[in-house]
């Protein structure tokens, strides 16, 4: 039945190969910049969820539940279309018109804040998985709360959560594709553009699939090395109560 005319040359010919590579660059930049936001903010919020201060804990919990429970697609729309309308007129105008590449920065903030809520959950679980006796011993031997976090909880807790964090890191690369809905020309958007120019949709999407797969395998290779280097020998296996 199929009357499709295959033409694999499309994806390696100019200008289409250039579009795909540009899309790859945008995907990588978007993923890395939003990961930076996610890691810093997620750490702060995750730590806040383990603090003795109740208001700080509630605030952090509120953040996590808010950002984790709204679909990213909706958040993307809210950041891009709704936020500039809520701000004062000049600020909104700046966001919409004077900021270069508003769609990129909206997507960066959106993905960063969303992933931060997920990172925060990993950080919290890492900190709480450190046996409470260790923290109690640290406090008893005269360390302040800040010192207990600095020298005991954070070094141990963070090394435990490296594997789930690297999987969040891989996830942010795939989530960048949602940014195409607000006009970011990343890999998926580039392949759609190639489809609309050449009508060779299968080839264009196959190329996008291959790029995502290559990217993921490369990242997997890198993150496995990080995981191996940060692993605490014998820590997970030892029963601790």
């Amino acid at each position: 039945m199929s009357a499709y005319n295959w033409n694999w040359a499309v994806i390696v010919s100019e200008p289409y190969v250039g579009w795909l590579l540009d899309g790859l660059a945008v995907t990588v930049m978007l993923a890395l910049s939003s990961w930076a936001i996610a890691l810093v903010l997620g750490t702060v919020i995750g730590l806040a969820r383990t603090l003795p201060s109740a208001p700080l804990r509630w605030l952090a919990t509120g953040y996590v539940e808010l950002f984790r429970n709204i679909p990213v697609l909706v958040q993307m729309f809210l950041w891009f279309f709704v936020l500039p309308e809520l701000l004062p007129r000049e600020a909104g105008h700046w966001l919409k018109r004077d900021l270069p590449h508003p769609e990129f920065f909206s997507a960066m903030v959106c993905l960063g804040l969303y992933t931060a809520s997920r990172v925060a959950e990993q950080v919290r679980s890492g900190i709480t998985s450190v046996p409470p006796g260790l923290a109690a011993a640290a406090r008893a031997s005269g360390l302040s709360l800040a010192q207990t976090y600095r020298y005991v909880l954070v070094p141990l807790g963070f090394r435990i959560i490296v594997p789930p964090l690297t999987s969040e890191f891989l996830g942010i690369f795939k989530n960048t594709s949602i940014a195409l809905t607000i006009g970011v020309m990343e890999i998926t958007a580039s392949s759609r553009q190639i489809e609309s120019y050449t009508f060779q949709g299968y080839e264009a999407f196959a190329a996008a699939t291959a790029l995502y797969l290559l990217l993921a395998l490369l990242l997997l290779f890198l993150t496995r090395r990080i995981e191996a280097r940060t692993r605490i020998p014998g820590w997970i296996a030892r029963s601790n109560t």
Partner: protein
Amino acid sequence: MILFRLAFAAVALCVMAAPASSEELYGTLKKVHDTKSFTIGYREASFPFAYYDDQKKPTGFAVELCTRIGEAVKQQLNMPDIEIRYLPVNSQTRIPLLTNGTIDIECGSSTISLGRQEQVDFTYSFYVTGGRLLASKESGIKDVEDLNGKAVGVAQGTSNEITINQLIKSRKLNLKLVYVRDHAEGMLALETGRIDAYVHDEVGEYALLAKSTQRERFDLVGPLLSFDPYGLMIRRDDSAFKLVANRALATIYRSGEIYQMFKRDFEPFGIPMTPAVDWTYKLNALPE
């Protein structure tokens, strides 16, 4: 005796009405014959060609033409029990779903282009339009030259995207191109002042304006930027089915029924009948 003659006439009619089944069926007609179903792929937001009515049922100018083609296929095969199905498609899925046989015809607002005909075929055209600028009045845009330094929106994956990129090259325009996902978001970007002008087919812009609550802020400006004859997308190398489809269209054009449909579907949105559209119907009203 009368009964006998009636029966004879009925048999004779059946024999005469079923010439297709005596020929070797191929392509879409064979598929419809074997599966007893005819699937129409429709666009969900190509106003007023294909969209949802209040009951969430696909409707519109092109959907009605496709349904009529489905009826013609039933008649041609002499199989009144063929089921006409509807499946939503978008600009990314329409060609793959058509070529792999999921849908048998696509109805929406697809431009008949030579490039597309390397992958698919089209029926006779049922509407002719072109890209045009929809600009906000405060931007002062009156023509293509005024676009310099302005922000211009276009939907990804449309023929309008190709039009504006060619225009930027040929007229050496220095503008900021903003990509949006679909025409509803394009209108939203225009209304919120994110862009000064939006490029879309003129007929679609009339429909966007009709639905906008701030329509007095915007104007259609400048000439048509492209020539976009719309057709119903079908598979290539399928002359027998194409003839059934075109015959159904020509019959509607010839009888003048198309003008009533036009009045009903277009006039409420203030979309005028242009000479090009009129001639499309006249030229394709081929005789039997």
